[in-house]
């Protein structure tokens, strides 16, 4: 949902627009990303000055049509339901404006800012030293942990936690002095397309494990401060400690995962 997604560039070629976006609008839609989830457009909701994100899940030609329809409808509705629940329970996620599950689209509030991945990478630059003492970066890690904790505490499992699926929304629209290099702002969890309800420690642990692994492969040099995420997570709700214990088990299972037939 970033205005600038430079390091995960979408292919240059043009995709046919979803039908809803072929109707007249004050500004043409911009293709932001072609994620695996589908395409994300920046467009407008009802009024020229209300930006929104349109998440479109095009039919996947390689998937059996029946399976494709089943997954698309299910995922559009499920994501919308979960976003609505998160908002109701006070977690910062994009709010739902409109949807059409048969046509495969979901219109959401536009979140200003950049994916946390970009903020971390900009902050790291070419550095290999002093990362474990970078208090501001560690503070960002803690914000991530708190946001994930809040999400788990209201009974939601994200299912695809990565630093691409969290936005850092700058404090206010006016103060963009630091640009993407700044680490201030609010974490907004996005892309809940694979999320589901869940209050089991196992589910929470797997969610954290997915994040941990994605973090390690995306920001190998910042792996040393990932513990800050877990520390803040631990403080964020009552059951967090148990989930973290479970995480150790999940990790072991991952490492020892049988390669045998």
């Amino acid at each position, binding site marked *: 949902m970033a205005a600038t997604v430079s390091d995960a560039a979408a292919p240059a070629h043009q995709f046919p627009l979803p039908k*809803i*976006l072929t*109707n*007249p*609008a*004050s500004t043409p839609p911009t293709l932001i990303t072609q994620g695996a989830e589908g395409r994300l457009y920046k*467009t*407008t*909701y*009802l*009024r*020229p000055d*209300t930006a929104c994100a349109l998440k479109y899940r095009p039919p996947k030609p390689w998937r059996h049509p029946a399976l494709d329809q089943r997954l698309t409808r299910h995922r559009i*509705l499920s994501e*919308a*339901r979960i*976003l*609505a629940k998160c*908002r*109701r*329970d*006070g977690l910062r996620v994009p*709010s*739902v*404006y*409109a*949807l*059409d*599950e*048969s*046509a495969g689209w979901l*219109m959401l*509030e536009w979140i200003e800012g950049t994916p946390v991945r970009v903020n971390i990478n900009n902050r790291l630059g070419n550095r290999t030293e002093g990362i474990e003492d970078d208090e501001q970066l560690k503070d960002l890690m803690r914000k991530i942990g708190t946001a994930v904790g809040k999400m788990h505490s209201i009974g939601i499992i994200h299912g695809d936690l990565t630093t691409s699926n969290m936005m850092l929304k700058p404090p206010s629209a006016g103060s963009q002095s630091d640009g993407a290099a700044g680490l201030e702002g609010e974490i907004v969890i996005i892309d809940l397309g694979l999320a589901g309800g869940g209050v089991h420690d196992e589910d929470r642990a797997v969610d954290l494990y997915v994040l941990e692994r994605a973090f390690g492969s995306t920001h190998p040099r910042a792996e040393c401060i990932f513990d800050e995420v877990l520390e803040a997570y631990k403080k964020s709700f009552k059951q967090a400690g148990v989930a973290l214990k479970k995480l150790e088990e999940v990790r072991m299972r991952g490492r020892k995962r049988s390669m045998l037939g």
Partner: protein
Amino acid sequence: MSLETVALEHVPSSYRIYLALFRNVRNSGFLHQQLLARNTDFEYAFIDASTIVSRLHLLSAIFKAVNSSANGALKTPNVHSETVVSLSASNNISDAYRRFGVSPSTTDLFVVKITFPSDSTPVPASADAIYKHLKDNVEGDIVPPTDESISSIADVKTVRKNYKLNGLAWLDAVKDEVVKREEIEKLVLSGMALRGL
């Protein structure tokens, strides 16, 4: 003249949307009766304005109805009844009419008229004709449907009840009334989008 022509993003170009807000309506019983009698001269969405929290709220319902109409996916007889029902956070159609539609006790009234060329009406009614018909039939004071007038009319208690927004501690804790209104608006929009699904 105070009949507003509304331009919405991503609405097919064949559609025209008109909007008017009447205050101090004195004949809502008559208007309600016309709907019950399915009087085809009264093809409007008549909405009790106290249930509407912002322009975006009402426009969202219109957008949903137009989208369903354009896709041939109406769940109610026409685009106007669809607009009223689109306000609902549930799938219950009669409940939606009751909550959001005009009733004999309505004093502030939104009127929405949506036109598009069809087989039966290749040339839809003009804005002037619609305005004239409304002026002749709605006894009330027409005012501009701005966010300002909407917020003075809105009955937030009812809105919160309609969208099951009571008992949200974090929402009650929001001090800034403007922020609170925005949060409520967002929750209302997502409730409508999901319609209980």
